[in-house]
């Protein structure tokens, strides 16, 4: 018997990386998973590889009408929604704030922050009518640790943290049996990260992490499984950091303290 057997889960940005790992694990543990992504080819092949329990839907999380459509489809096809993983997110090129391009700023906020909120907004009624649910927002350690060059991303992820806590209280006080938590991954070794960063940069990153290595997508997936399952039925408003201890003593890049 799987730990999320019979539950219906939506995972945004589920085609690759962390989202894909979450979709796979939830499916392994018995959930029906709906993978959404803007990357249609990768999304289709992810759903195909996971098998009968997975479907793919093309989806830009910043588009409210797309959310309305997808949630109506999932509710009519699967009878309800039990788990929502707001995982879709984008980064941005490092720029000086003085030079920031506001279109770029708005795009990051619209995917990372508004996309997360839209998912919550439109899933809440569906979860309320199906006896509760678990919403998991994938934020980042960037919500806690500022990076001078990446303030757009950090600001969006910090906003997701407070959005999560406010929604958690809203749901708890409304006796809706909906729990809302955030996960804050540290440096995770996804294929995307490996392709974008040089080996030397990755080694530098690893030196800044107490455990001495980057995390795997599975590490986030298991945290999501715990929060999605009824094992965590009294856990809400939690910001679960999965970072090997990085946030306890973040070191500036290239400047080890010891």
């Amino acid at each position: 018997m799987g730990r999320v057997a019979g539950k219906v889960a939506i995972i945004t940005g589920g085609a690759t990386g962390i989202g894909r790992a979450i979709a796979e694990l939830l499916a392994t543990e018995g959930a029906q998973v709906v993978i959404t992504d803007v990357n249609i080819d990768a999304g289709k092949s992810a759903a195909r590889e996971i098998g009968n329990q997975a479907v793919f839907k093309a989806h830009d999380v910043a588009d409210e009408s797309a959310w309305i459509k997808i949630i109506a489809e999932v509710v009519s096809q699967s009878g309800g929604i039990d788990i929502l993983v707001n995982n879709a997110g984008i980064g941005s090129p490092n720029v000086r704030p003085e030079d920031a391009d506001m279109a770029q700023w708005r795009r990051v906020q619209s995917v990372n922050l508004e996309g997360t909120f839209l998912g919550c907004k439109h899933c809440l009624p569906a979860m309320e009518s199906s006896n509760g649910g678990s919403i998991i927002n994938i934020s980042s350690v960037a919500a806690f640790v500022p990076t001078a060059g990446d303030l757009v991303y950090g600001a969006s992820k910090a906003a997701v943290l407070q959005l999560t806590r406010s929604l958690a209280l809203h749901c708890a006080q409304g006796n809706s049996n909906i729990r809302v938590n955030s996960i804050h991954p540290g440096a995770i070794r996804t294929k995307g990260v490996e392709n974008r960063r040089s080996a030397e940069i990755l080694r530098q990153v690893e030196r800044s992490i107490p455990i001495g290595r980057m995390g795997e997508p599975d590490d986030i997936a298991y945290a999501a499984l715990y929060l999605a399952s009824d094992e965590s039925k009294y856990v809400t408003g939690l910001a679960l950091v999965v970072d090997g201890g990085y946030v306890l003593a973040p070191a500036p890049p290239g400047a080890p303290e010891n």
Partner: protein
Amino acid sequence: MTFKLDGKVALVFGAGSCGPGWGNGKAAAVAYARAGATVIAVDLDIDRANETRSIIEKEGGSCLALKADVTQASEIEEAVAKTMSTHGRISILHNNVGIGDMGNPIDLSESEWDHIFAANLKSGFLICKHVLPIMIEQKGGVITNISSVASLRVRSAELIGYNVTKAGLNHLTRTIAVGYADKGIRANAILPGLMNTPMIYQVRELVEQFDDEEAMVRARDAQSPTGKMGDAWDVAHAAVFLASDEAKYINGVLLPVDGGLSCMTV
């Protein structure tokens, strides 16, 4: 059938329940056993440790019950030595000991303060002092300390000893998490919120604030954002998760199990 903690040895301090029903330590010990671990149930009161042992054994698990007063370094040392001579390793150290003695800084005597510190905080230091060398030698281990949401939130000065020691336990946990991460040791704390466990009925001053126990339960339920206290199994499930390899990249976190209570705090 395989379980998450197959082959692990879990040393649980404060594994007995101080009253009828399920306390956090007893539930954690049983949950570890159900997940496949061999358990060493240590308690100040050997009868309580034996009660936990008999539950585990009836379910087909393996448990050794030991008596130890964690305010006494020699008794901690003996419990650790006995664990090693019996099982040869300690994969999971679970420190559930805590006392909720009440008193504000004016009323609380110096000796009462010292006693709360010895039971709630110095115990954590002493236990780690004896267990860390073993975990370093065996190249890994998991330490889970049971703190409290009272380490973050302050509701009154009447729990100053409890609040301060639990805050200290948080930072003890994080210091060990950073200090021994490169030895394969992870340390985390679980922060229970308002729970319905036997302990709350034992703190006389707590019960006396209300007309009766039922009124206390109603008030504590109402104080929880979810409208209901949690129970010992909520803590136990979090502990099994943190102890398992599923949490292999989770180190130095404070994990509230509190129905959202602490998210209202910085």
